[in-house]
């Protein structure tokens, strides 16, 4: 069972308190009506499905109930970082570099 750091509670807590909520940094278009069918399809269904560091959303639903973002390596299942909604994508290079030094 993973330990996940909730960036709002600032605690490492067991995976059981969290649920996965899909890929992160996919903004709902401000004016969906202006999108053509293909663009809307891409928003709805197309995901990056990466092998390696993945930007994704989690919710601390049995805790503070906040959604937050994380970078998790889909190969090792290791969390590289978690951060609050609205914060920019962390830089992957520096995350991996940091991981490498540990």
């Amino acid at each position, binding site marked *: 069972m993973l330990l996940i750091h909730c960036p709002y509670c600032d605690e490492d807590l067991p995976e059981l308190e969290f649920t996965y909520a899909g890929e992160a940094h996919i*903004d709902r278009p401000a*004016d969906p009506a202006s999108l053509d069918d293909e663009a809307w399809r891409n928003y709805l269904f197309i995901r990056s499905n990466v092998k390696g560091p993945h930007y994704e959303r989690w919710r601390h639903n049995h805790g503070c109930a906040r959604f937050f973002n994380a970078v998790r390596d889909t190969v090792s299942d290791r969390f590289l970082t978690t951060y609050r909604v609205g914060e920019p994508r962390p830089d992957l290079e520096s995350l991996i570099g940091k991981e490498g030094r540990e």
Partner: protein
Amino acid sequence: MTAFRVAESGRVRHDRPVEFQFDGRSYQGLEGDTLASALLANGVHLLGRSFKYHRPRGILTAGSEEPNALVGTRRGPGRYEPNTRATVQEIWDGLQAESQNRYPKLSFDLGAINDRLYMLFSAGFYYKTFMWPRSFWERVYEPLIRRAAGLGKAPQEPDPDHYAERHLHTDILVVGGGPAGLSAARSAAKSGARVVLVDESAEMGGHLLSEPGLVIDGQPAWDWLAGMLEELRELGVRVMSRTTAIGYYHQNFLALCERLSDHLKEAPADLPRERLWQVRAGQVVLAQGALEKPLVFDGNDRPGVMLAGAAQTYLHRYGVRAGDRHVVATSHDSAWHAAFDLSDAGSRVEAIVDTRANPSDALREAARDRGIRVLSGHTVTGTSGRLRVNAVRVNPVHDGSVGPAETLGCDSLLMSGGWTPSLHLFSHTKGTLRWDDESDAFLPDQQAEACHIAGAGRGLWGVEAVLQDGDLRGAEAAEAAGHKPESGAFQVENDRTGSGETHRELPSDRKPGRARAFVDYQNDVTAKDIRLAVREGMKSIEHVKRYTTNGMATDQGKLSNMNGLMIAADAVGKAPPQVGLTTFRPPYTPTTFGAFAGYHRGDHFEVVRKTPIDSWAEENGAVFEPVSQWRRAWYFPRQGEDMEAAVARECLATRKSLGIFDASTLGKIEIAGPDAVEFMNRMYTNPWTKLAPGRCRYGLLLGEDGFIRDDGVIGRLSDDLFHVTTTTGGAARVLTMMEDYLQTEWPDLNVWLTSTTEQWATIALNGPNARRVLEPFVEGQDLSPEAFVHMSVAECRVAGFPARLFRLSFTGELSFEINVPARYGRALWEKLYEAGQQYDVCPYGTETMHVLRAEKGFIIVGQDTDGTVTPDDAGMSWAVGKKKTDFVGMRSLSRPDLVAPGRKQLVGLLTEDGSVRLDEGAQVVADPNQSVPMAMIGHVSSSYHSATLGRSIALALLKDGRNLKGQEVYVPLPSGLHKARVTDTVFYDPEGERLKV
């Protein structure tokens, strides 16, 4: 004393005999024996029949890796445990064990015919033999194979034992209580770290228990062990025996299974049988030792053939000789010492057969001193003996060619093919292995978790080296956990260091196709099977494994994986590291379902949510049904009524006069804040801006994909406060979805969402007399039809309780839903029920609710919709705000697929014969005379007998359904083919006259 017991020897209590039974016969063992050691002491070697060929099998090992000696043990009703490893099960007075997979008896088994037909049962025989005729697979072949193959039988009764769960946090967890684990635990604990030491065995010591001749730091090994355990106790180390580390997961999370009662004659009633520990450790030291490999030769599975290290364990730990006349076949020095020890204990060792041309002079000399014949540079080419080995066939090998055979008589053949470092838990963590040429073994390479591997697991050999290594790894772990490392030194006398070589199957002068040389004993996989798999195109070790089932039995390939790899590598023509090893997966040893289930069984399996009115329903004879996690009153049968009669009565009573229904499980969310109406507009399809406070509206919620997710009536209590209701099962999902949009898409909106499902008890009064019974209770709201119109909401008092009162209808009747704080729910229900007596008030349950709503064509989300239904498909375009520019899912409603013709649409179905009630889920076809498989145009989503209409009604999702209205369709059911007419979805009171009461 039994024939094979060695006086004064072993850790068993010679003064405490234990009576037990095997296959109905009584035997005597000693306290401290395992079932295997006790049977060996009685000269019993035949314990079971093999999985596929029903070959007689005996005891191969002395530990949890045992693939052969699987028995059933019984300790009363429901306490039958199949596939118990006799090498692990400790005996107690009255223990009953029985052999498995044999008929009519162990010594004469009809299934053994399979062994004669072995040519038919080669690798992949399932896929080849039972291809034709196709329909025979399910009906004939598979049931036959399933009966013939397999091991123990699962017990039929419920398990009367209970199982516990615990969590544990520690600085350092040491797995394995052998010399490496002991020294690691000590050095870690001395540095001040919190340490837990676990071992699967009944007592700590590991290999030390099998080699009492060692002298450690000047003390005999067992005295040293006792002192060590005392020291660990003083250092505060938690020492757990009979505890298996079954799995090693992310971030140093390990699962341990502690066995508490299987070794006891009488367990205290409150003692759990097993306890599953979930451990989070700062650092882990893996000191799991090494497992001895069998040699692969014809007849290497006969009872009486045993690993040499196991024989050494039986001799020293249990005081049992594995036979009277031994032949030892080996490619490793360790087996020589087993031979010497047995010889010293009074057994006769006929010969030591070593595959190596030049075993060391020291060993030869020690053999000569004991008068043991040495055959170096030899191979083993066969064994004989029906139910126990009585002779071994050996041949010299010169420059790769096999010389003439010689037969050696014996009653025990001890073998050793070298040792495999036990890296199962390391492998669970995705730690990688590298091939070590020197030791011909895989050793740990890159690690993925904070763990340290100590001792034989790293390929070290000899107790001094292992003790020293454990000590260092323990210190290393302590330092990594933030403690100042402490380490010590060890001196070991009589240490038996040694080496060996690794083989594929041994060379033979006989036809290899005839050899029954077993690699995987438990799954009956031979060397020939592995070569055949490679010949048939399985080049990857993963394919070889699946095709032959090598390593796939409950022993997880502990003995077979390396031998299988050596043979496959040879067949493929590659070096072993290029072929690679299959992945070990948890659990390390077979684990009971009980341990995993723990407390989560029976009433504790799942939460049961009860409404405040549940107790009244129970007292009044309700039959309940589970709805998501709620228990809801389903119907209220009177004396002699079945469900159909009760539901018909409830429906008629409600339509005629008055029904009362507990709707408390409805999901409720309060949406509050200055931007509440904006939020509602964005979430729901309907327009909310113009909905006046005091009014309510049916709301439809879509996913962003345009499909219906949920629905419910929503009341506006004030400009900035909405009382949202959701489906019972959808409450949490809807709140999550709303939170998601609010937190991540529209954090600028000033809105608060609060789940209030359990805060309110909700009572629905339905029927023409609903107002008459309610009106006298209401203060603060005029209930007259003009003042409180259909689809209104008010905050008022009902029977003195603060209430949110809705006028809405899910039945088509005049209806009020009264929400009061949950604690007043039952009190209000009782008052209304009492007052309703003058109108013959009828309590009804969810089934009647379903019928009444279906008569009105109201959908149940999740029953009449399936996640692919749009508002238009459901005939509810009226609920979509035409002037809205955006809401969740709106853009999708114009996607090409969602506007294409031919979508499934919700319609009504009336069977030609009104007494026929269609099955929900039944498929609908247009033409009943078409050939099979028929083109299905949709399915029945709801179907009931309507007492009001005196006939059956149904709702269905049919392709292009609204255009089919008036036409006939067909529903093929097991009861026959039924004709039905497609109709509108509203069967009763389509004009809504009954609301105008």
